[in-house]
């Protein structure tokens, strides 16, 4: 297993000599996916987070990064190790909802803070919410809801909807239907990890739909879009940003051009923090950031802002500092709702080509100041 220990505190104090009384140091345990098929998501989350830490120059934060290999059992072991032997104060980094459900409830029950860089299942937003759990990304349904709203505004009357047969896939389709007002021609559940979509594409061709909504994260989306383009079906596609992030688009190529997708972030969002982030990320890692990198970066900055306001040992004050969300988000407007999930704008992006690079540009806002559907069930 890869293990990276970034001990900025030690290195810096050795160099500079301890000249001032250090504030309360914060130990962060980051559990994310750095190997296996989903590694690119975790690598971007980590790199975004570490960029925020590096830019701050804050010597009082120590980040321990661990690779969960996308396995829930391994994630649980790592969380136990980080809490019991490394004695971390804050956990973060999990990409996948099933891993988050395995780790988060027990971590927050032990009094640790958990800041989600990505996964935000509905269970943790409603009745299962917790004062020490913050989702800095979104609530899982958000991007699908925005896609439903976009389908309305784009005048789609008959939409073919499709997602993998697992909890996040079902949440996705129900999120879409929560806002979409037209008719659903077909509702298809594919296998998780499916690589061939010929059968589904044939049904899309036969369905007479005027739009296709699909949620196929990672390699599934790459396969689907390439095969869809090859089949010559002209029905427009819409989907959440997960199949259109910066790393995936290069593998899809021309097949993705012009496709509309919904996202909380885009590299061309017009705010100072975002411009600085995109430039710094490119300079540091020599590639464009993805939505996962942006969420990791925001999570890092949120944590740093709270550290500046309150010591982590005073849990109530630290929680208040997190709730204030007093940092410059790369998404522009950003605040927390009562269930510690974001209230933010959700944009519609279109896939374009800039030179040789496929990327997204914002073409509109689907939902403004969107919270989530579960906040009312959260009692804390």
């Amino acid at each position, binding site marked *: 297993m890869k293990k990276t220990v970034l001990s900025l505190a030690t290195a810096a104090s050795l160099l500079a000599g301890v000249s001032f009384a250090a504030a309360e140091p914060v130990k962060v345990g980051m559990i994310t996916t750095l*190997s*296996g*098929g989903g*590694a*690119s998501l975790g*690598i971007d989350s980590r790199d975004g987070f570490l960029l925020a830490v590096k830019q701050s120059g804050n010597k009082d934060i120590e980040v321990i990064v661990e690779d969960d290999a996308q396995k829930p059992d391994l994630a649980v072991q790592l969380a136990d190790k980080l809490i019991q032997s490394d004695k971390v104060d804050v956990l973060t980094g999990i990409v996948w909802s099933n891993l988050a459900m395995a780790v988060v409830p027990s971590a927050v029950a032990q009094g640790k803070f958990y800041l989600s860089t990505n996964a935000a299942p509905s269970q943790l937003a409603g009745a299962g919410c917790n004062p020490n759990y913050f989702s800095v990304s979104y609530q899982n349904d958000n991007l699908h809801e925005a896609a439903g709203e976009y389908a309305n505004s784009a005048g789609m009357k008959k939409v073919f909807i499709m997602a993998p*047969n697992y909890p996040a896939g079902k949440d996705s389709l129900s999120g879409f239907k929560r806002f979409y007002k037209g008719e659903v021609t077909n*509702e*298809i*559940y*594919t*296998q998780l*990890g499916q*690589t*061939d979509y*010929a*059968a589904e594409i*044939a*049904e899309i*061709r*036969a369905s007479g739909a005027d739009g296709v909504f699909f949620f196929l994260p*990672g*390699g*599934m989306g*790459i*396969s689907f879009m*390439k*095969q869809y*383009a*090859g*089949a*010559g079906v002209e029905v427009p596609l819409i989907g959440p940003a997960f199949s259109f992030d910066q*790393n*995936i688009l*290069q*593998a*899809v*190529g*021309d097949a993705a051009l012009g496709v509309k997708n919904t996202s909380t972030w885009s590299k061309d969002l017009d705010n100072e923090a975002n411009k600085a982030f995109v430039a710094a990320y490119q300079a540091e890692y020599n590639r464009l950031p993805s939505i996962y990198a942006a969420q990791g970066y925001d999570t890092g900055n949120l944590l740093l802002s709270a550290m500046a306001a309150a010591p982590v040992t005073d849990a109530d004050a630290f929680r208040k500092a997190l709730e204030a969300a007093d940092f410059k988000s790369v998404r522009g407007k950003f605040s927390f709702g009562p269930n510690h999930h974001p209230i933010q704008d959700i944009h519609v992006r279109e896939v374009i080509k800039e030179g040789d690079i496929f990327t997204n540009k914002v073409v509109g806002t689907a939902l403004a100041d969107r919270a989530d559907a579960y906040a009312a069930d959260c009692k804390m």
Partner: protein
Amino acid sequence: MTVALFLEQILNGLQLGVMLFLMAAGLTLIFGVMGLINLAHGSLFMVGGFVCAAVAAWTGSFWIGLAASLAAAAALGALVEITVIRRLYDRDHLDQVLATFALVLMFSEGTRFVFGSFPLYLDPPAFLSGPVTLPGGLPYPAYRLAIIIAGLAVAAGLGLLISRTRLGMQIRAGEADREMIAALGVDIRFLYTVVFALGAALAGFAGALIGAIQSVQIGMGEPVLILAFVVIVIGGIGSIRGALVAALIVGLVDTLGRFLLPTLLAGVMEASAARGVGSAIASMLIYLLMAVVLVFKPKGLFPANA
């Protein structure tokens, strides 16, 4: 449901079938001749995809990439056979599974080391990238049609190789009685290396062909490997003919099951439940098929040493 849709799904099933055959043929040859369970076969599929994508990006030609993937997979197969696999023939199957699983992990991380963690881009050649219109006015992706033709051509070539050539005769003899052909003076070590490289080349070829319509990423071989194992169990371990028939059956059953079951169930239950149950059963269908075949034909449809 229209006739056109049904025909299109049958073609899709055939395409999945020939792709599975390319994987299963190597697997079944290696098991039949050497008695080796090779979990790393999926890694060779992945290597084929990555080499094709990298070479195609470098040279701008899919065809050079395809040739490179064949060569690379065959060379890698021969190398692995000589360095690792050769030591496993006399061990029991559990040792083989453990050692070849270790190879899977090494290939995955090695591929990440060389190519990075992000999926690679690989597109079909331009003249095959769109749809073609089949007789009857049915549009169908040209590339998938090309895969069906290429796969059937490889099947025919492999059939000729096994039944008509000296190498094929040695392979058949090796399947029947390993000790005897060694006693007759055939260089059995060389034969094993050739068979392994041949199987690896077929897997690499499949990986490159499929990479162009799927995602070229780490771990892309494992789902295909599982299906290929189902195919060789149904077809009869060691039988090329069995692998072809079983691959086409599995391809058709899987594709048509996913397409028809939710529709059929919608007649007897509420629509959204039918979709959920239908897709769940559809994903089990080929395993059910395997179980049924094993009940009636415990050695598969075409037992190699019957």
